[in-house]
């Protein structure tokens, strides 16, 4: 739980199962991202805390309006027009909030890359894919090719990148790494000549070109067929296994989380609901929302006539209910639910639940409240709020166990 800065060393995915004391790669504490609109302030991200370790695949799962994508954009200074505040927003030991746009651009090119659902949002339609990746490679600056404005312009409009240059070779290598067949030929193709799955691979190659420590993937497979989806997710896992890159995977799909992530955070209406290692989240979900989500999904092995839907709709973000944002739809809601949410820890390391059912002054059988001492409970909530409780996970590493 210590947060003292320490020189970090790049380490591959550790196979040890011990809890490590290394500071996390990314630490987010009490992040707020607020958009001002005609209809009022929209707290898209409303007090979110989590941390991502080196070599870890961390999932953020949520439905529309949960704030999962805005969280990612906020980390990189890409939440246009929003006010972003946090008690802590650190990549390694650098404060991301203190950085100006130029410094953030540097980080986005070298340390943290992002891939999106729609590859065309980050691919240039009129440049060959090899050219685009080579450009990132040169920008990353370890191939010793001139990237002066003049040299880049000449490449862009006159000569193209020479196929014998180091940057082009590296681009072809990267296309090969992400599983593109005949990479040398494919490098000369334009994005529109590629299928959806191939475009997604090119985007991953481009994200890799800057040799990042963290890849943020926002719904990277949502538009793809299941067979292609499985290939792309496996590709991401291979990258983690081979290069030790951390991955923050943002998705609406619990099944995708279950097969790819080491740890996961469940978000709802801009707030954290539950975070745990993936196995624990599925085997022992504690939050009523997490349980509701899991139960509402049709499975290939159930014979329920009716699905257990969560009734109702996500609250209007300009008029969120006080206290727990889920209380308008929660079957278990009780007297304390109008109090601000705090994180309650479970026994498993790193398993936290933002739900008052788990307040020590509440006795519950997991579904229903049996007894609650209101005064004591509120006292506990206040103490909880006052303590500077950074959600730094201890690190359960399931690398060896899952695959």
């Amino acid at each position, binding site marked *: 739980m210590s947060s003292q800065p320490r020189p970090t060393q790049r380490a591959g995915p550790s196979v040890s199962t011990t809890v490590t004391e290394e500071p996390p790669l990314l630490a987010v504490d009490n992040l707020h991202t607020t958009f001002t609109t005609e209809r009022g302030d929209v707290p898209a991200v409303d007090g979110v805390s989590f941390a991502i370790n080196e070599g870890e695949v961390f999932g953020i799962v949520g439905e529309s309006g949960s704030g999962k994508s805005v969280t990612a954009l906020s980390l990189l200074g890409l939440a246009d027009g929003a006010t972003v505040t946090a008690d802590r927003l650190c990549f390694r030991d650098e404060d991301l909030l203190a950085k100006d746009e130029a410094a953030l651009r540097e980080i986005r090119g070298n340390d943290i890359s992002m891939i999106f659902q729609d590859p065309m949002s980050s691919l240039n339609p009129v440049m060959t894919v090899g050219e685009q990746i080579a450009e990132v490679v040169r920008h990353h600056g370890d191939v010793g090719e001139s990237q002066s404005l003049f040299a880049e312009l000449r490449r862009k409009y006159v000569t193209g990148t020479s196929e014998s240059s180091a940057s082009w070779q590296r681009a072809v290598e990267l296309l090969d790494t992400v599983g593109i067949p005949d990479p040398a030929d494919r490098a000369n193709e334009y994005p529109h000549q590629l299928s959806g799955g191939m475009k997604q691979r090119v985007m991953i190659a481009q994200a890799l070109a800057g040799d990042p420590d963290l890849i943020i993937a926002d719904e990277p497979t949502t538009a793809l067929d299941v067979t292609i989806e499985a290939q792309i997710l496996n590709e991401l896992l291979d990258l983690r296994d081979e290069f030790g890159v951390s991955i923050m995977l943002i998705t609406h799909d619990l099944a995708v989380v279950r097969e790819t992530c080491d740890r996961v955070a469940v978000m709802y209406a801009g707030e954290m609901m539950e975070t745990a290692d993936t196995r624990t989240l599925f085997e022992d979900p504690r939050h009523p929302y997490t349980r509701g989500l899991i139960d*509402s999904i049709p499975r290939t092995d159930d014979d329920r006539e009716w699905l257990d839907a969560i009734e109702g709709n996500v609250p209007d973000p300009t008029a969120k209910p006080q206290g727990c944002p889920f209380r308008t739809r929660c079957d278990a809601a009780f007297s304390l639910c109008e109090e601000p949410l705090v994180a309650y820890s479970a026994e498993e390391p790193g398993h936290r639940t933002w739900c008052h059912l788990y307040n020590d002054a509440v006795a519950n059988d997991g579904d229903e409240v049996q007894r609650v001492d209101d005064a004591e409970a509120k006292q506990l909530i206040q103490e909880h709020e006052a303590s500077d409780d950074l959600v730094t996970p201890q690190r359960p590493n399931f690398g060896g166990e899952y695959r």
Partner: protein
Amino acid sequence: MSSQFESSVTDTTGGQSAESGGEPLLSAKGLKKHFPVEQSFLDRLFGDDEWVHAVDGVDLTLAERETLGVVGESGCGKSTLGRTLSRLYEPTAGTIHFDGEEISDAEGDRLKALRKDVQVIFQDPLSSLNPRKTVGEIVGKPLAVHDIATGEAKDERVAELFEEVGLSPDLRDRYPHEFSGGQRQRVGIARALAVEPKLIIADEPVSALDVSVQAQIINLMKRLQQEYGLSYVFIAHDLSVVRHVSDRIAVMYLGKIVEEGPTHDIFEAPAHPYTKSLLAAIPSITGEMGRRTVHLDGNPPSPIDPPSGCPFHTRCPEYIDEECEADEPALQPVEQSAESDPERHRSACHWNDRDEADRAAQSPYGNDVGG
């Protein structure tokens, strides 16, 4: 699911099913829908006509009160099939019978009558709802168009329909954009229901919705089916969802049905290599954790120039020999297990005529080939 199907057999209000030997509500034979490819001047000069074989010879039947799920990867022609069956598209070849009548060439008044009996629900309700009309007007319009109700009776019926789909009638003066995705899909369903159709063709009706809302809409569609005795053609890419709602499933590949059968048989004892690959690729929240094994590489070939022989031979993990490339396998009955009914479970693959042991030896799924 199957219980629903059985109830339709014993139903005394006139529910017929294929099983009870009655006429199916909907049947198609040799159905094709081809689209011309946009062509350059040169192509036209040389008379190179190119066609997308979106639906390429489909036979199917649907009983009253039954749900047929249609699955397949994007581009397999499942949406085009839905639109052709509902006569939003004119078929290129083949016949469609609905309620005892040939409808593939229906026009004018007959087509208008058909528009009442067959309704279509789309993935994105917003694009199919007029943004300048209130949702009350949207649901009320078909009532007027088909002379079902006017004036006060219409308003009453609209209010009823709203309640039926779980929307407060107080919301009738709002506009579609004021609603969430789930509420908009409820409006779309109320509009479809207004004309008391016999058949609803639902094209990815829940794909754009959040999972919690998706479950609400699936439950709603199932309840309405029971109440109104509806039949559904349910088109979707999500196999878990299709399994949950369908009595029978048809698996499409490159414009053709490669396997069809009762839902239970398709999931428990799939026969076609393509079906097996698809099922193996389903992301799941139960069972083993960790990576999915994928036995299917790349994308389907172009429907402009489909492969010879078996359409799946370019990707098939159980490819046999030249026969797969030379002869197109016919959709024929298969007996996958003791419980399965070979009359209703059919697959199009040359393994049907070959030795099970040979197949087990070469299949990436090992012995797990059913039968």
